[in-house]
């Protein structure tokens, strides 16, 4: 309870088990994210971070375990369902279509359109205006909404994915290694957007294998290793080096 609130958590995952064939990816993991909390999900490559998040996004279904969203037990069986509840994920490579414009990416999957007969005609001008306004609203400046995403820098791309999730009313934002390929300056920008999102009332799961990427913004850390949870720690409970050691398995906790 890093924020000291007694509110129901946004998400509570209980005793999650997932096997792929003979491999046990997750072995009874509990994971909780409070309201308006930036929760860092840390672990080495292959620790089970992605599997846990994919279960939350409805990409995989757990073999055992229960998920509660805002206190209600839920069965998340598709990404569409997860999104409808207000869970938005920004994956590193899977966030945007580089060959398409900012506007087309922003509204992808929920384009504004007028239905004439069987055909949905896009309202491009309206979407362009809304994209520019919505991104400005969350503090992201763009040159032109018609610009192709592929011409933007990594940080700009990440910020557009975050801005999109914020605009479409996400309650829980999942950032999958958002800064691992970015320069120092761009990383700082993405961290600012993360804090903006929190200020606006969102909860954020920040996935990383490197604690240095999240130490400044995270309210709490959950560390998993070999499919098991090592523990959840509040900000200030451990130093950066302590956490790095636990992730690597140098130190047991």
């Amino acid at each position, binding site marked *: 309870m890093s924020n000291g609130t007694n509110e129901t958590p946004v998400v509570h995952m209980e005793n999650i088990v997932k096997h792929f064939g003979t491999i046990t990816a997750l072995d009874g993991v509990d994971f909780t994210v409070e309201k308006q909390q930036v929760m860092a999900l840390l672990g080495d490559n292959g620790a089970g971070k992605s599997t846990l998040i994919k279960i939350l996004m409805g990409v995989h279904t757990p073999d055992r375990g229960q998920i509660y969203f805002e206190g209600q037990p839920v069965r998340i069986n598709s990404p569409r369902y997860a999104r409808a509840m207000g869970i938005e994920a920004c*994956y590193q490579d899977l966030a945007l*279509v*580089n060959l398409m414009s900012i506007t087309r990416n922003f509204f992808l999957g929920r384009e504004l359109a007028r239905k004439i007969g069987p055909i949905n005609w896009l309202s491009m001008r309206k979407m362009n205006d809304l994209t520019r306004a919505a991104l400005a609203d969350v503090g992201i400046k763009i040159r032109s909404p018609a610009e192709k995403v592929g011409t933007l820098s990594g940080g700009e791309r990440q910020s557009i994915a975050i801005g999109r999730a914020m605009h479409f009313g996400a309650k829980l934002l999942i950032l999958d290694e958002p800064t691992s390929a970015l320069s120092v300056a761009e990383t700082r920008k993405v961290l600012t957007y993360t804090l903006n999102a929190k200020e606006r009332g969102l909860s954020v799961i920040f996935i990383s294998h490197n604690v240095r990427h999240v130490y400044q913004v995270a309210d709490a850390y959950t560390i998993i290793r070999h499919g098991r949870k090592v523990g959840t720690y509040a900000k200030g409970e451990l130093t950066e080096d302590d956490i790095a050691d636990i992730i690597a398995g140098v130190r047991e906790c």
Partner: protein
Amino acid sequence: MSAVATRRETKRRIIPESPIAGPLVTLIGVFIIFSLFVPHFCTLRSVSGIINAAVLTGTVTIGITLLMIVGEFDLSVGSMMAMGAFLYGLYTVENGNPLWALSLALLVPGLMGALNGFILIRTGIPSFIVTLSTMFIYRGIVWLYSGGQMLQTIEQVPIYDVFNGRLDFIADAVQGANFRTAALWFVGLVFLFQYVLVRTRFGNHVFAAGGNVGAAAAQGVNVKRTKLLCFIISGALAGFAGVLLFSQFKTALIATGAGTELTAIASAVVGGALLTGGSGSILGALLGVLIISMLRTGIILLNLPFIPADNFEAIVGVTIVGAAIFNNWVRGRS
């Protein structure tokens, strides 16, 4: 001042970024070169000939381009074209119900396209293998349906004029301008599908599914349905090419349309479509078929000793590679 500079920069970036920039430059270049060296090339007679010759492949290319943007392609369109030609031919000649003939000629190839898409989605086998197989299978169905016989008629059914009538008012106004209604149908389809691609939700999903499947699926785009629809549209367009073909020649052979799939892919590439998906345009496809058709006419009229009309395919090969390199270069500059 900086605002002006940015705007100019944006403009400069958008022009070469347009997918038709490359093919448009190629088309104009080829036209100018032939006009300089080939007598009577820059006349309405030769231009109308170039357009008429481009219509059949062009109609198929619309569908192929759509498929290439969504990240797939279809080698069986030539066989579907033959199927469309036979269905349309038999039902216009024997039963004499032109609407029924037209519907079947669109519906059956459309279903064949749907089957291609269905196999691809269900098995995950690449479209190259799936449609290479169905190319032979559908040709076999054409053979069975036709009884191994070619179909020919000398009847003049009114619907043939709908799809291949002479546009007399142009021919009267300008001597030698032999435009056909088929060209109007083709150009109409080009603009329809260009508009659908750029201005509809379906079109948006086509670009997304071809550009980045993962991102599209993560945003809730139904990738499978989008691909299936592209296969169906491409099949129906191949069937329609068969309709145009039979209206023009009043003949359907078992081998009708064989090879069209490759010329169509070539035209789509020359027109700026990426084989890896996510990029291309139907207007570019129009330019692509016109470039290839123009080269054919130009080479024939040039009558070079080492490239007679029969050896034209070599020129197509050179064009594809050249256009692909050129389009990449134009794209890379933006």
